[in-house]
């Protein structure tokens, strides 16, 4: 079982050497030469620098297609027509499963056709030089976004290829994404990734790391998400990462979202060592979207408005075509501009929301309780602690497909639309906090004239795609009699 200790240079070297042979592009990776390439990049392509010096939220979309030229065109479009400040390269599913052979076939098939036979950019197959072509062709910094439990070779190739930010982490890219990867192994794999980022950082090339905050994207209680961010942040910092962007996914309640982002920033700065620069990223709603672009624009706009009030360092935007899967580049750029309009119109306004402090205090207390339980479960070691805590259910993520988590916790919205916990299972929260949640859900049950039950959970999961925030009984039709396209 891994402990939270820094890999030695020897270990780093040995693992890297083993990985080189997993796919031929691994052999192209030369650390010294990669440092030189990064040093050749202008300040405008230095991810950490651009992000950490911004004076208002930077916008970043998701985007990935198989072929290099198409990926460059897509990102250039999002940069020029969407006004993206930071660019992504989303990796395909085969690469996420380390199936480079299948990715190669998909890439070859995509090259020979007008269709995209992969759902992202197979960066390992493209190799170091093609990654650098991408980086050179664009004006903004580019991040690798994926969902890969074992992202070691992907990190080696893409960092050598000039990417300066790398999404994911051992929990956030395991628990919500896969079924059978055990947590001990993914932690070891990510210790390598983080150590590699640390090695670049020590040579003056700061690599930004971004744990994936939304987790399962479905009504995740803020304290659970924040605890995972802190654990991944600590694990990364141990390996030498010095630029960490902690994430949080919109739940749709303005006060709770602003409070959660403030708690995330505060606790990030408190829990992570002083040498680490902590920034925050806000993901626009990651749950089900209305199957209606007009209503979807409303969901995106609420995200933009929330960002204007909370002022995270970065916003990951959505598009109005979210319901139907991968958006066109036009819809993707439109999502950026709609978000930008809300931020630009609201960011200079003095918006002082009542109740933020109380909600933030509750989130912080919960998060601290979860962190205490984690340390305790590992006798002070955060790596061992998080494995044991997930195993016992002391830490848990709702709707987690992974066998590594109990997935027994269930959330529901309270009468104000804030995400509370309906089923705690073995989650390590003190009784007084549990009582607060139960009382809030009790208010809702009373309003609705029904018992607290899994039915609320089910109704809430569908609520936003049905055009509401809270899944009230009989809530499929607007009280004012308006027809909803979302039903």
């Amino acid at each position, binding site marked *: 079982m891994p402990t939270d200790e820094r890999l030695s240079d020897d270990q780093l070297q040995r693992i890297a050497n083993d990985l080189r042979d997993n796919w031929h592009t691994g052999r192209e990776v030369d650390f010294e030469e990669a440092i030189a390439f990064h040093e050749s990049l202008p300040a405008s392509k230095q991810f950490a620098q651009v992000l950490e010096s911004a004076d208002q939220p930077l916008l970043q979309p998701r985007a990935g297609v198989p072929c290099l030229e198409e990926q460059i065109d897509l990102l250039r479009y999002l940069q020029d027509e969407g006004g993206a400040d930071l660019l992504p390269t989303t990796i395909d599913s085969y690469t996420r499963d380390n199936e480079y052979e299948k990715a190669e076939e998909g890439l070859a098939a995509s090259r020979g056709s007008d269709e995209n036979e992969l759902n992202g950019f197979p960066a390992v197959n493209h190799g170091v030089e093609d990654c650098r072509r991408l980086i050179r062709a664009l004006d903004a910094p580019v991040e690798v976004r994926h969902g890969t439990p074992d992202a070691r070779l992907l990190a080696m190739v893409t960092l050598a290829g000039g990417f300066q930010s790398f999404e994911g982490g051992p929990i956030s890219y395991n628990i919500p*994404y*896969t*079924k*059978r990867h055990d947590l001990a192994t993914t932690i070891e794999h990510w210790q390598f990734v983080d150590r590699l980022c640390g090695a670049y950082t020590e040579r003056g090339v700061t690599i930004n790391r971004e744990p994936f905050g939304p987790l*399962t994207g*479905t009504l995740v209680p803020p304290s659970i998400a924040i605890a995972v961010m802190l654990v991944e942040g600590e694990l990364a910092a141990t390996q030498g990462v010095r630029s960490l962007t902690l994430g949080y996914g919109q739940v749709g309640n303005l006060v709770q979202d602003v409070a959660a982002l403030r708690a995330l920033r505060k606790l990030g700065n408190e829990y992570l060592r002083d040498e680490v620069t902590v920034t925050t990223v806000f993901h626009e709603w990651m749950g089900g979207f209305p199957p209606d672009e007009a209503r979807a624009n409303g969901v995106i706009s609420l995200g933009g408005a929330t960002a204007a009030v909370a002022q995270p360092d970065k916003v990951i935007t959505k598009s109005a075509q979210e319901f139907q899967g991968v958006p066109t580049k036009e819809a993707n750029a439109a999502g950026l501009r709609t978000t930008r309009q809300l931020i630009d119109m609201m960011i200079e306004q003095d918006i002082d929301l009542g109740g933020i402090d109380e909600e933030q205090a509750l989130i912080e207390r919960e998060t601290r309780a979860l962190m205490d339980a984690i340390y305790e479960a590992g006798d002070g070691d955060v790596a061992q602690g998080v494995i044991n805590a997930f195993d016992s259910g002391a830490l848990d993520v*709702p*709707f*987690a*497909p992974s*066998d590594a988590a109990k*997935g027994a916790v*269930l959330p529901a919205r309270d009468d104000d639309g804030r995400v509370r916990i309906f089923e705690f299972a073995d989650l390590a929260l003190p009784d007084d906090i549990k009582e607060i949640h139960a009382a809030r859900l009790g208010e809702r049950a009373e309003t609705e004239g029904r018992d607290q*039950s*899994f*039915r609320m*959970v*089910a109704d809430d*999961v569908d609520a936003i795609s049905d055009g509401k925030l809270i899944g009230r009984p009989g809530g499929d039709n607007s009280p004012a009699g308006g027809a909803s396209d979302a039903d």
Partner: protein
Amino acid sequence: MTGKYMPRTVILGVIGSDAHVVGITILEQALSAAGFEVINLGVQTAQDEFVSAAKSHDAEAVLVSSLYGHARQDCEGLHDELDDAGLDVLTYVGGNLAVGQSDFEETQATFRQMGFDRVFDAETDPEEAIEMLREDLQLTTTEAEQIRVDG
């Protein structure tokens, strides 16, 4: 085999490489609340896992979920495996069963032909599926409620 007031066991899982977990989590809760004994195999469940779970838990129904559009390929041969294992269980399938905008009646016919007793789309409420299950297992509502109180 099943006494009148003993909980009926159902097997639940998302078939193939599909990782959509929300639907079955809610279905599991609904079935438990309705008095059923639920074995939830979770996401990314292979055909043989459904079969061996049905056998070892002496289940009366196998509920297969699929939301990523590859249900037909993933379910091909499942009923043969169940037959081979000598199991005569009720089988339901539900979710987004076909890629694209194909006609649901057509999809329904396809899956009925493959051997499923009932076929549901992704909009089906858990309650509706449970209602059908009660009907197919010849449980009265009263009995189901009784079970819940006892169980």
